[in-house]
């Protein structure tokens, strides 16, 4: 461990603002790319699921009409 205390660690020898700005924005960019990619997949699957349900409903209605 290079730092004596936790506040030493946060201050980074006076460069704390720049170091934490870098690591913070990096974490923000990485996590937002990850979350949006996962969310896209969820949304796509949901779309397909809705389409399947819709087609099933249409089919059912057609069958009922035919009877």
């Amino acid at each position: 461990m290079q730092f004596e205390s936790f506040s030493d660690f946060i201050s980074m020898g006076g460069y704390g603002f720049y170091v934490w700005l870098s690591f913070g924005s990096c974490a923000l960019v990485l996590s937002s790319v990850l979350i949006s990619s996962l969310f896209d997949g969820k949304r796509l699957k949901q779309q397909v699921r809705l389409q399947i349900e819709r087609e099933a409903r249409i089919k059912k209605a057609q069958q009922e009409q035919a009877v």
Partner: protein
Amino acid sequence: MWKWLHPYAKAERAYQLCNTLLPYFTVITVVCLVVGWVWGLAYAPADYQQKDSYRIIFIHVPSAILSMGAYSSMAIAAIIALVWQIRNAELAVIAIAPVGAAMTAIALITGAAWGKPMWGAWWVWDARLTSELILLFLYFGVLSLYHAFEDKKSAGRAACILAIVGVINLPIIHFSVEWWNTLHQGATITKFDTSAIDASMLWPLLINIAAFAGFVGVITLIRLKNEILQCEKHRPWVRDLVSRG
């Protein structure tokens, strides 16, 4: 000899391959990221000149390397897509571009946050910085070109051509610190000479490079899966996959 590759041109097989690879990439990324950040931030010794501000190197260098690495892979996929007309390769181009842009953005942001305390300026119109900014615009260009066309066939072709043309920027970025007088320092890690960095700092740096490379892999796989689903959403195998859960 290379015939075993053929089935992977099929969307369903490629989708399954993504699923198989994803856990490995995820584990590598998480482990390397945690180890690399803790080591880089808390255990690596401070630099004799730049003191603790140099710790930005542990994300700046990996993101910069990967911004160019991702672009190269994107361009290779684009060549494969254009020459052999393999649609999965085209989808890979579109899957890599967002994470490549993210890497470029991180390299620029962390570079600015490092430049301020060391050079006294957030931004200078220096060869290295400007060419890296152009790389960001190239990524945006590839993505917006793809989404500008209604017909995805011509969209893919246009995006691939731009991705290939943009490769000219990679040597410019790489050699910018040698060709022009610049504020930016030279390479830290070199393949053939001994590195200009001590082992106590080199190891966490290498681990962080592995973490960022793994992250690019993870996002590419997730997004490639999404692109394949989008393309194949009317096919029976996608419907089976979705209804199964």
